[in-house]
Structure formats: structure tokens, C-alpha cells
């Protein structure tokens, strides 16, 4: 049972908004609204208009050739079409927990906001802590709590977008659940995937989590101000990332000191004008 509203929904993602403790929407596949029944309870009793020959105990093989992630991919393409039509640049930010995704957004949004409207979707298993931090910047934000889920999917983003009043010609930052494995597989409809690592992690991270780095379009190496204090070979890390994905765009930044952020900002602004 859902603790907040007492409905029968268990598990599944929930949308929340900072400062609105009553606001709470379940992401359910079967309807757009918060509903109190579950998929699978409705049986398709209608006649398809043709006869099936039912033989006791006979088995039959049916070819499907269907992509396992088809449902997610189709919905992701719908999201993508919506973003394209409204000229919204959607970025999917991915990293391990603690690499600095939210801090990066806190730093970069005030700079970009002067020229482009920005909105944010935050993904975490629990709490609205990250959405609260973004809300303090005065930009529209929605928190997706995935519950036990380890990644965002296209349905959650589709639902969250409907709750956000997105403007044309804007930037949408989607901060995924901190995880370098699962989110790599789920297309959300974003234009670009941005993976963030920090020098307090290992320089072999691209080799250890190749799927994520293979899927990413940009890689930001964060916390470079700490480099003198840790065993992290920047050149080696970059080479490792390039081995996994030779198209990856590489940036070195310190969200804390601001070093390198101007280059990233410039890249984003160019992209916002010409995407």
C-alpha cells in the first residue's frame, strides 16, 4: 500500500514537487492519471472476430522477433519527437552516486538561465533532496522517486514532462539515478547522454563500466581541483574513455572552483542555438 495516499499501488515510481507535500503522482503504465487498479487485472474478453482452434494440449511456436525494450524505446521516441518539435534540448546526466551531478546543475543552470529557460527532472530512489536544491535556483523541477528502481525509464520521463510547464527553445536536464550500470540501457528520449566521473574514483572506470561510456556522448571529469591529492591519471582515464567510445566529447571541470565550466557552458550554448 502507498504510505502517502493510502491507495493500493505498491512499488513503482512516484512524482513529487519541492514545497508541495500534498503533490504526489504514481507513474502507472495503463493510464495517465493516478489510478487504483493495476495492469493485468483487466482481461481482454472481447472477440477478435476469428475462430481459434483449441486443441487440448497442443503447442505452437509463434515468432515475435521483438526488441525486449520495444515499449520503452517507442515511448522514448515519442518523448524525443516532442522535444524536437518544441526545440527543447534534453540531456540525460549519468554517473555513480556522488560524482557531482546535482552540484554541476546548481553551478551551470544560473549561467545558462540568463539566455535559455531551463527545467530539471531529478531521479532518485527516495527523497526530494536534489529537487529541493534545484528548486532553490528558481527553475521548474520535478522529482521522480523510483522506489526500488535503479534507473529512470521513458514512461517516468513522459509522465514527468506532462507535469512540467516546458518552454519552447529551452534546456531540459534529466538527472538519472546515481548508477553506472542500469541507466545505460534505457533510452529516455534525450538528445545526448552526459556521463560524469570524478578524480576520487578510479581512472579505469570507463573500462569497468564500458556500456555506459559506450552509450555516452559527453564525458565530464569532475573534481579536478582534488587531483594533486589522489592517485588518478587524467590522461589515462581519457584514453580509457576513448578506447570504449572514440566519439566521446571530453571535458575536465571542477564544479567546486568553476575551472573548466566556461568551456562546457560554451559547448552547451552552441548546441542550444543549433540543435
Amino acid at each position, binding site marked *: 500500500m502507498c504510505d502517502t495516499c493510502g491507495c493500493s499501488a505498491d512499488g513503482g515510481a512516484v512524482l513529487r514537487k519541492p514545497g508541495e507535500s500534498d503533490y504526489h503522482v504514481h507513474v502507472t503504465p495503463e493510464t495517465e492519471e493516478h489510478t487504483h487498479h493495476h*495492469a*493485468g487485472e483487466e482481461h*481482454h474478453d472481447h472477440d*477478435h472476430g476469428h475462430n*481459434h*482452434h*483449441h*486443441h*487440448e*494440449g*497442443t*503447442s*505452437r*511456436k*509463434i*515468432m*515475435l*522477433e*521483438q*526488441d*525486449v*525494450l*520495444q*515499449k*520503452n524505446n517507442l515511448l522514448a521516441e515519442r518523448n524525443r519527437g516532442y522535444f524536437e518539435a518544441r526545440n527543447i534540448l534534453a540531456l540525460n546526466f549519468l554517473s555513480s552516486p556522488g560524482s557531482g551531478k546535482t552540484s554541476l546543475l546548481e553551478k551551470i543552470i544560473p549561467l545558462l538561465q540568463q539566455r535559455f529557460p531551463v527545467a530539471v527532472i531529478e531521479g532518485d530512489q527516495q527523497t526530494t533532496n536534489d529537487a529541493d536544491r534545484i528548486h532553490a535556483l528558481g527553475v521548474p523541477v520535478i522529482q521522480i522517486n523510483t522506489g526500488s*528502481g*535503479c*534507473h529512470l*525509464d521513458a514512461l517516468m520521463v513522459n509522465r514527468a514532462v506532462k507535469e512540467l510547464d516546458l518552454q519552447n527553445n529551452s534546456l531540459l536536464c534529466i538527472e538519472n539515478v546515481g548508477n553506472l*550500470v*542500469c541507466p*545505460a*540501457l*534505457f533510452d529516455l528520449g534525450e538528445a545526448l547522454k552526459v556521463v560524469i566521473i570524478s578524480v576520487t574514483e578510479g581512472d579505469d572506470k*570507463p*573500462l569497468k563500466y*564500458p*556500456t555506459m*561510456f*559506450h552509450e555516452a556522448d559527453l564525458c565530464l571529469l569532475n573534481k579536478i581541483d582534488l587531483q594533486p591529492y589522489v592517485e588518478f591519471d587524467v590522461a589515462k582515464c581519457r584514453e*580509457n574513455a*576513448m*578506447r*570504449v*567510445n*572514440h566519439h566521446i566529447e571530453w571535458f575536465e571541470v571542477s564544479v567546486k572552483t568553476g575551472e573548466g565550466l566556461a568551456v562546457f557552458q560554451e559547448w552547451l550554448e552552441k548546441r542550444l542555438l543549433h540543435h
Partner: protein
Amino acid sequence: MHEMSIALSIVDAVEAKAREEGAGRISGVDLLIGKLAGIEPESLKFCFSSASKGTLAEDAVLAIDEPEGIGECGECGMRFPVTFYYAECPECRSLRIKIVSGEEFLIQSITIEEEGE
């Protein structure tokens, strides 16, 4: 553990197809999961057994075919087996490798039992 949500989406897809075909139950599901697809077959099998409880796919046997990864060199065009994304061409040492096989992730077919109505 993305295997759980993937198992659930497989159950959804095969159940929809089986209902469309008027099946009594699903006895088998054939999957094609390339070795580079980022899915652990063993973990998926485990999740599938709990995800399919109470559905037409309960007790269905999951058969998984795992094609090897094949890379193609962007410089010399040579094709060779790869086990990871960071492959190097054995011929010309180039790192410009395109993965041409091993990323498949398909439900190939299902076997349904047409038990009486």
C-alpha cells in the same frame, strides 16, 4: 538490477502476444541476448521466474541464445571477435571499431499451449 524491470517487460510482451493468440499458457520463451547487450542471462532467468508468477508465462522455460560480439575495423575493414567495447583491431591496431554483432536483445519466439477453453 535492471534485469527485474526487463523481466517484467518480457512477461508483459509475451502475455500480450499469447492472449492475442488465445493461448492457455506459455510453455517457452526464446530470447536472443548478445554478449555485449549488458544483460546477465542468469540474473534475468532468476527474475523471470518471479516476474511471471500468476501470469500465462508462469513455469515457461526461458531459452537464451547468446551471439558472440563481432567488431569491424573502421580502418582496414577486418572483422574479428570482441568481448568488450574497447577492442583493438588485431590487423592494423586501430581503435576505431564498430560493433556489428553482439548487441542483440530480442524476444525471438514463444511456445504456447492451446489448452481447452
